[in-house]
């Protein structure tokens, strides 16, 4: 199958320090990939390069075969590359329905309409109801975000991302900061992601990585040091070295 998302020879240096060093990877629709790496490995920079918030010194990013390296972040979203945030970035005084509604309208290019209330637009609302229903947020759809639990806010982040109908979804630690009791619902939501969607998840929690990912990529010092099956990752010598070099023990990934 043709890759829907492709990064080739991506490089970025700050000062003399290469933070992303010749990174290449490709993903096909339906892929479930986890990107891990010790602190300071360059994950954040990589995400910013991919989403277009930073521009690389060299290399290329392709979406559905089209080179988007020169296209800004907004253009990449419109072409189907969507991300979620590690710390939720939601509008505190808006409701989940408004969040998802806005995303749907934005996707369809209707967000500039200066007339009409989306609550009365049946096509938009059908989608909002369906998405929020699927993620178990239907009962909260008209509450302000500031009034709902953090675990539910994380689910809403995913809902907003899905409303944009992405081809490639970048999930930045989707379960970060969520109490143990709520992680089940998030994992369920991840498991229910559309089958044809390519998902790249950046994650620390190895339990989650193992349950979710079919493929694991390890980033260290800006370069990919491992790209393979989850089962092989803990046995890889370079991975062990990368982690043991920075952690007191390797129990995290064992």
């Amino acid at each position, binding site marked *: 199958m043709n890759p829907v998302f492709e990064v080739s020879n991506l490089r970025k240096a700050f000062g003399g320090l290469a933070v992303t060093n010749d990174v290449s990877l490709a993903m096909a629709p339906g892929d479930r990939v986890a990107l891990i790496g010790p602190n300071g490995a360059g994950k954040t920079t990589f995400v910013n390069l991919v*989403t277009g918030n930073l521009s690389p010194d060299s290399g290329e990013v392709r979406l559905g075969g089209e080179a988007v390296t020169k296209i800004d*972040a*907004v253009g990449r*979203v*419109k072409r189907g590359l*969507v*991300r979620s*945030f590690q710390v939720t*970035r*939601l*509008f*505190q*005084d*808006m409701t989940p329905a*408004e969040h998802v*509604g*806005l*995303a749907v*309208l*934005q*996707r369809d290019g*209707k*967000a*500039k*309409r*200066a*007339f*009409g*209330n*989306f*609550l*009365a637009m049946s096509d938009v*609302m059908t989608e909002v*109801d369906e998405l*929020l*229903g699927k993620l178990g947020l*239907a*009962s909260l*759809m*008209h509450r302000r975000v500031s009034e709902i639990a953090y675990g539910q806010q994380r689910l809403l982040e995913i809902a*907003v991302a899905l409303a*944009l109908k992405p081809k490639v979804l970048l999930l930045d630690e989707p379960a970060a900061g969520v109490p143990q009791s709520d992680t089940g619902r998030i994992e369920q939501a991840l498991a229910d992601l559309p089958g044809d969607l390519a998902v790249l998840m950046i994650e620390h929690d190895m339990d989650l990585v193992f349950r979710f990912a079919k493929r694991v990529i390890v980033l260290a010092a800006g370069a990919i040091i491992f790209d393979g099956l989850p089962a092989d990752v803990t046995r890889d010598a370079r991975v062990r070295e990368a982690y043991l070099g920075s952690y007191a023990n390797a129990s995290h990934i064992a």
Partner: protein
Amino acid sequence: MALVMNSENERLQHQRRFSGDLIGITAIVAIGAIGYFVFPDNLALLTRMITIALLVLSLDLVTGYCGVATLGHAALFGSGAYAAGILSAHYGINDPLLMMLAGIAAGAIAGLLSGAIILRAHGLPQLVLSIALIHLFHEFANKASSWTGGSDGLSGIAPDPIFGLFEFDLYGQTAFFFGMTLLLVVFVLLRFLVRSPFGMLCRGIRQDPLRIRAMGGSPMAALIRMYVISGAVAGVGGALNAISTQVVGLDSLSFTQSAEALVMLVLGGTGSLFGALSGTVIFMLFEDYVSAANPFHWLTMVGALLIAVVLFAPKGLFGTAAAFVRRRKEARA
């Protein structure tokens, strides 16, 4: 979740907000009517209030809904006023509706220009950009005195009767009803605007522009658009000012006018059309009252009011009242 309501039910409740429109219009008409009957011989003052209310509404669009900090919003208002005034004084086009159109167009253009500059920074530097801009507008109008009358003011504005029937006279009936009509129309249109997808987009931008970008939206384009709309609204106010008073002064393009509008907005509560309206009415009435009670030192009283509002109603008078009502309702539910 014990309190689960199904989504359909909640949506109905939500849609009851539409009745807010009716309440709003009724409230404006009622206050206008009260004003008309309480001050039947002071309609000039009420008309003045309407023009300032339009300016404050326009400011609310960019400050309240989009989070733009500006102390230069009178640039939009004054542009509208001068455009309407110059059309009449220099070109002899005295039809009030045409003058109004000129005001709207000039306000929108000034909005585009202001937006393009002010939106280049955020926070305090943004505030300073707006200050620099209003001074440039002011100086420009002062310099172009053959067009604007400079510091002497632009006089010789002589609007025809509306539809050839209603004359703008000393008693100010026509100006008042003209103003009320404009205010109602603008208010209804803005109610649509702020609840439309575009209004929601702007509210999102105010809270987190980066998030909007991650949703594929372009904050800059949306803000500029809102600035143009805001300019049109301010232009309505400016043109109304020129038509009803038949004179335009440099003060309509001044920092003072801008700052006063901002104070009224924050006093009423940002981010709500009712906040903007109530802030204007309360500020102007309060000023009227205390300056009568204590002629030379009323400024101290106004200062005390502002401090009291920050201490006891930090979300503005309307904002705090609305929050209180909501809390009461929730407590009862």
